[in-house]
């Protein structure tokens, strides 16, 4: 097993069927483990789901994964972003 590499996948948009299914299907096929999932309806009405994933075992590069999840987002008419966890640690923790 390679070193853990943790990224957040963020889905923003309207809640609908199949979001988790389509993303997790892709993650399973590309050997990416889901460590945590959370979701909320924000004050401004947006549905937001975050997935903490470990891409350490995957053969896909970060760029390939980002492109793939963005495409899934387009198909579902939601915005999906992939970001390394460090940016959140830096911005939100002292």
């Amino acid at each position, binding site marked *: 097993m390679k070193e853990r590499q943790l990224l957040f996948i*963020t889905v923003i948009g309207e809640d609908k069927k199949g979001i988790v299914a389509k993303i997790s299907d892709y993650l399973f096929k590309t050997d990416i483990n889901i460590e945590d999932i959370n979701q909320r309806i924000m004050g401004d009405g947006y549905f*937001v789901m975050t997935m903490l994933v470990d891409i350490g075992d995957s053969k896909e590069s970060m760029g390939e994964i980002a492109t793939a999840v963005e495409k899934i987002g387009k198909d579902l008419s939601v915005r999906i972003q992939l970001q390394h966890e460090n*940016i959140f640690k830096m911005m939100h*923790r002292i």
Partner: protein
Amino acid sequence: MTITVEEIYETASMILDQHLDIRTTTVGINLKDCIDSDFEAFRKKVHNRISSFGRRLVTEAEKLEIKYGIPIVNKRISITPVSLIMEPHAIHERFVEMAETIDMAARDAGIDFIGGFGALVEKGMTMSDRVLIDALPDVLSGTERVCSFLNVGSFRAGLNLDAINLIGKMLLETAKKSKNAIGCAKFVVFTNAPQDNPFMAGAFHGVGEGDFTLNIGISGPGVVRAVVEKNRDCDLTGLSEIIKRTVFKITRAGELVGRELAAALEIPFGIVDISLASTTAAGDSVARVIEAFGIEKTGAHGSTLAVALLMDAVKKGGAMASGNVGGLSGTFIPVSEDAGMIEAVMSGALGLDKLEALTAVCSVGLDMFAIPGDVAPETICAIIADELAIGVINNKTTGVRVIPVPGKQAGDIVEFGGLLGSAPVMAVNPFSSADFLKRGGRLPAPVTSMRN
């Protein structure tokens, strides 16, 4: 460590909706060791140094854009002030040839702007400095990517009026030689110029720097505006507090990207410049932040206080977030690159006099504003001298980027296109100070410089 959905959503919204980005990653490159008495060999060394490093910068920056999902808008290079390395070749044609070499190297590296074609002349001018200034109209109009600066004053040295007196004529010539006077947009004249500024057009690699250094400029007027709009009823202390917190977060993103990029390039990390820098994109405007405070239009009475509050809060938030804050670090208020500033000028809320007042509390100065092309060169010099006097006396950086547009009058609009936007042509004071400027010489350093 758990990151909450709310925190992730806040970051994602900043990037996706509020234009948060890393505005610039600028590698400073020392060129002093490229100096060669053989001019062709010298040019070749300069080209190779810039182009090979520039390509690495672009590649590594793109990797980090993917990793953190944050756009790195500009990848740029600053170099040792060119007048310094050209001392053995102080001939007009050779300055133009060197500019072409640097321009070509930047293009080969995929770099859109390269800064440092300038001189440090706060106390006096060498032959090389004079030849460089003389060559600037050809350099600024004949090259695409080369940016130029002059530092003509400092807190320690005073203000070199003899150097300022050369600039009016130089800018008018540059304006005539380039389409829509665009060459002038690539030139800034400074006092107290920081040697690690990552922002163009005034970036250069200072003589006190090492061989390489990576400097980062963050941005985010849209992010600050969003948070101000959510807090309409808080008092000034509260407003300062929420801006500080927001700027802390965006500066941390810059610090992270800067450190990782420097490590990937195997060069020292220099500074994070925490300036709020606007762009022409909708919502990415510093003027709109001021207006969100409750000012009807930027330029209205009260705007100077608003800019002062914003500037101070930005600095305090940034200082907590990074161990090495540097460069200009404050708030830019360019006219042509900020939709709110353009609107303020066009509606009559903001004129040159109030803009000068705002620069006394902002981080830089009179930036990217157009004036009629038929103004006297002495008037341009006087506008510059006034602005830089503010910097010398108050021990702060001030700069001027002025564009005299041939054939245009006050009230006309000039389109620069791309990053540079469009600018309403602003009226200048019609009375002359030519006799005052003719005196020349140097404004002595202020008494507050005697600190030893």
